């Protein structure tokens, strides 16, 4: 059934993405593609992979935004990874006419059953975040599975049972955990850092949260320019007695 679970799940698995430290290296997108192309909704098909106009199914995309403070004229660049937010009030689920889209009661993960999806694309229209992908080769919709085939995989070591994007991030900008538990490590992280939801006005109540860049350490303008070494080639100021004597001998 594509109605949402009547009671929202107690466990809400999701990601917390730290925009302060993401360096925009795209490793999460690449490892996501690598894991998922043989995972739950495999394959993640590519079109014209070696020709002009390549495109394909990606669950993870990393945008770069500039924030311009119009008062001070200062700007900063923010790398912005985006994947499915596994919304509590997921509009992609309720619009599905076939029941292929569903939200799991046990952990809140939003998935597509590729065996009954008709590829009407309405879920991609209903999602504000662009989390839905259409696989042109298979004619069905695909989306981030939160690596459902990895996080519960008992053949992996416990430390590896996190989504591929999380385990691969070289700077630790992605965190995985239960956002339904107010005392979980990542819930505490969201509280401590003032985490936020994307487009709350769309009423989707995303599970995934984002952490804002930390405030810049503001200095006076003069201090911000690179410090220059004073040029001392010809001066003996501050030199010791011996050095001044040698300088005197050699300068003669």
């Amino acid at each position, binding site marked *: 059934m*594509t109605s949402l679970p009547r009671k929202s799940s107690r466990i809400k698995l999701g990601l917390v993405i730290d925009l302060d430290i993401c360096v925009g290296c795209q490793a999460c997108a690449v490892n996501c593609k690598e894991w998922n192309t043989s995972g739950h909704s495999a394959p993640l098909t590519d079109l014209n992979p070696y020709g002009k*106009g390549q495109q394909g199914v*990606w669950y993870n*995309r990393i945008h770069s935004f500039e924030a311009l403070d119009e008062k001070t004229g200062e700007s900063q660049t923010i790398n912005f990874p985006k994947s499915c937010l596994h919304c509590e009030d997921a509009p992609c689920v309720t619009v*599905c006419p076939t029941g292929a889209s569903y939200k799991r009661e046990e952990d809140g993960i939003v998935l597509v059953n590729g065996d*009954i999806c008709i590829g*009407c694309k309405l879920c991609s229209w209903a999602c504000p975040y662009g989390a839905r992908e*259409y696989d042109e080769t298979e004619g069905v919709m695909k989306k981030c599975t939160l690596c459902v085939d990895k996080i519960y995989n008992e053949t992996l070591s416990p430390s590896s049972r996190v989504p591929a994007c999380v385990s691969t991030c070289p700077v630790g900008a992605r965190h995985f955990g239960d956002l339904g538990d107010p005392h979980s490590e990542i819930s505490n992280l969201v509280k401590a850092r003032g985490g936020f939801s994307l487009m709350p006005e769309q*009423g989707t109540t995303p599970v995934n949260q984002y952490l*804002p860049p930390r405030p810049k350490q503001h200095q006076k303008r003069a201090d911000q320019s690179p410090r220059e070494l004073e040029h001392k080639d010809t001066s003996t100021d501050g030199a010791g007695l011996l050095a001044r004597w040698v300088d005197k001998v050699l300068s003669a």
Partner: protein
Amino acid sequence: MHPAKSVIFFTTGSGAGYGMLIWLAVLSLVGLQPADTFYGLVAFGIAFGLVVGGLVSSTFHLGRPERAWRAMSQWRSSWLSREGIAAIATFGPTGLFALAWVILNENQSYSVGLGIIGAVMSLITVYCTSMIYGSLKTVPAWFTKWTRVAYITFALMTGAVLLWLVSVLFNLPQAPIIGQLSMVFIVLGFVVKLFYWRSVDNAPATSTAESATGLGKLGKISLVEAPHSEDNYLLQEMGYRVARKHSTKLRKIALALGFVVPFILIALAIYGFPQFQLIIASIAVFSGIVGIVTERWLFFAEAKHVVTLYYGESAI
């Protein structure tokens, strides 16, 4: 939004077909339709042809058309599912009404009852079609009550104009009344479309690049670099951009061909040159088709989706 041909034909065609079915029942109820076999064949033939053609065409944009029957299952939450069920169910009473008309030459008493039930169900089906679009919060240009009002008004308008053409073809004495009815609904449709555009153009932005990224506190947000150098599915489906450059011109074309020209031509056929009414009616219908297809194309092509905020749009 990408204006897929199949969806444009589906919404305009099935809308006009249901409009005809509604008028065939309502006009029979007030005794304005002859229970003639041949007339019934042509009128119901066009109406069902448009409805069936529209529904079949709507499956063309599916990735897996052979699974289309599955779309009937989720009526509890999905307007697309409700639309599918309503469309199939409507064939029952309207089909029986058509059979009674064509075979028994009967469009009064019990059969008109079936016709009216079919008309109500046709209205429900058109409403469900409009809600597929009207329920999407992500496309603010659709998420307005005017979407519903417009779909229903246009179904009644295009259905009336087509039925007028058929009645002219059979030289029915009731043709002028159906023509006048068409003129009333053309005026209504014209006004509704103007209200729709006014409401869409003046609506404040629902989402912005600042709310999409949650970074508004840091300042004005703009895209520095897209996630990839090539196009992607999201941009092809939701980031359609061709229309907006010409939108003012296209709106004028839609209004002129879809409403003004048919209105004038119908008036001419009724009050000026009844002897040429068939040729005039044919031109009116042709112009109306081009106009309403342009209108529907704009409905899709002009509408912006909030996901484009992640690809360079600043407010939607």
